[in-house]
């Protein structure tokens, strides 16, 4: 009896030996971000682990746009939001239609298009960035938020189509047959049978595309440069490039920018994990 509990204690100690470093490793950069945001300007260079006088002053400056680097903070936040939502919605429309056509309607050439989409998905997005930039220039879309929205839809769609196709392949084909025999039109099948059954995957994919756009930096800074058009991520990048950056405000803005995606992730965690990892595990 005693030996069993001793054994259990060593086992627990071994687990802690892994758990504590994992905790520190994960949390240190995030904690540092938080630490900066509640530290007064004078003490951030002191290398302390907790400020002597924690303050919310930095948030006041950021939310009040009281620094010239932050004069468009709310506009940039709004731009990020509008672009992310647009990307989420457009990706859903494009990908749901394509997945339905390929998986349920067995459209001619569907398999080829699925393969082309997969090919696009596997080409690293950073390699497509320069051609995309030149293309948007040719289309006259540079500095227009549509350029970023369309570029992000292009990047998000292939994976979205693939996940939705995998999910819709699992729906029983008898449903379609029954609908056809009852004389339903393809649109009725889509609206009344397909969409309701696919809801969990649609939530996962919408969230995926939305977060992808919110987090994007490379494409955003290539395609947008006008101070009234840029997203918060580009504003943060510009902020960093300046020599006299007020670092505590930069970190505070960064924290504000990081909170919505973290919150969305935790809120939709169940959908995200099952929806997005299912494919990878199957492979």
């Amino acid at each position, binding site marked *: 009896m005693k030996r069993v509990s001793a054994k259990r204690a060593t086992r627990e100690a071994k687990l802690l030996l892994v758990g504590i470093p994992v905790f520190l490793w994960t949390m240190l950069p995030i904690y540092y971000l938080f630490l900066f945001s509640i530290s007064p300007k004078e003490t951030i260079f002191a290398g302390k682990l907790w400020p002597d006088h924690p303050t919310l002053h930095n948030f006041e400056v950021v939310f009040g746009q009281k620094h010239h680097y932050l004069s468009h903070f709310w506009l940039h936040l709004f731009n990020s939001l509008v672009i992310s939502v647009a990307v989420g919605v457009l990706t859903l429309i494009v990908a749901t239609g394509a997945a339905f056509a390929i998986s349920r309607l067995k459209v001619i050439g569907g398999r080829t298009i699925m393969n082309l989409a997969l090919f696009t998905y596997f080409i690293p997005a950073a390699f497509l960035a320069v051609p995309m930039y030149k293309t948007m220039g040719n289309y006259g879309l540079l500095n227009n938020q549509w350029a970023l929205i369309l570029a992000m839809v292009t990047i998000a769609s292939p994976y979205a189509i693939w996940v939705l196709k995998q999910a819709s392949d699992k729906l029983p084909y008898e449903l379609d047959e029954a609908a056809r025999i009852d004389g339903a039109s393809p649109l009725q099948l889509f609206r009344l049978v397909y969409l309701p059954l696919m809801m969990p995957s649609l939530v996962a994919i919408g969230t995926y595309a939305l977060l992808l756009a919110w987090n994007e930096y490379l494409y955003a800074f290539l395609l947008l440069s006008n101070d009234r058009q840029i997203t918060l991520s580009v504003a943060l990048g510009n902020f960093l490039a300046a020599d006299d950056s007020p*670092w505590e405000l930069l970190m505070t803005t960064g924290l504000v920018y990081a909170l919505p995606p973290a919150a969305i992730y935790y809120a939709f965690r169940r959908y995200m994990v099952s929806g997005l990892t299912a494919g*990878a595990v199957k492979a």
Partner: protein
Amino acid sequence: MSTLALPESRSALPAGPAKRRLSPWQAWGMIMIAPYVLVFVVFVLYPVGYGLWLARHPQSYVHLFEDPVFARSVVNTLVFLIVGINLKMVVALFLSGFFVQAQAWIKWLSLLFILPWAVPSIPTILSFRFMLNPEWGIINSLIFRFTGEDGPNWLNDPTLALSMAILVHIWKSLPFWTLILLAGRMAIPSELYEAASVDGATGWQKFKFITWPSMQTLYLTSTILSMIWTLGDFNSVYLLTGGGPADLTHVLATLGIRYLRLDQVDLSMAAIVVAMPLVLPLVFFMMRRLSR
């Protein structure tokens, strides 16, 4: 199965109307797939074609191979892939064995552990940048407090700077791969482990004869996919080191932007074309895996 079901349902109906009936389904299929085809043609096919057109001059490749930054970027990219990814995947495999444990505190830790992946990279990379500041960053403060010596100038030494970029990359993507491998581990029937325990197998033997054989395909796929994604990891390098010091920490993902900044778009495209022999085999491997 579904392709078999289709002719059956057709033969069940009278032949005449069935034929006419089938075409609206195809028509709707084409209408519904059209938006993606349009996106693909306008924003993938055209840019790729245009990029290849820009990269058509042999002279660009001569310039490219004469540029020492290009050679250095290729080496850095290979180091990033070979050292960074293997390290990351081995740690992820190890940690998946940790997070599979049933203790409540481990479940809570796993919720926190996912944070680096759930938050955008810019703020956390900025945080890393400040932590690594040689004068007042937390890392060197701690080094000074414990040893009395000044810590290194992390981002000013090319080797250290590249190592830090790899570390940032690992910090960001380790949770995702741990999660994937954890899902793989949970799919292994627990009876196998119970039977092995009864036979007196050690932990290492269980790993070698049960865990690894059932996970090696997933592990390989994950490694390849991670390589592809890492090739495109622009942020970890660009936001941490900016390619510096002296353009010595560029990787292929940041090189294109460097040439764009220098107004040498043809070199930028040529660099991407030259990288294709590295990328395409990985891409075709993944496509064969996923399109089965």
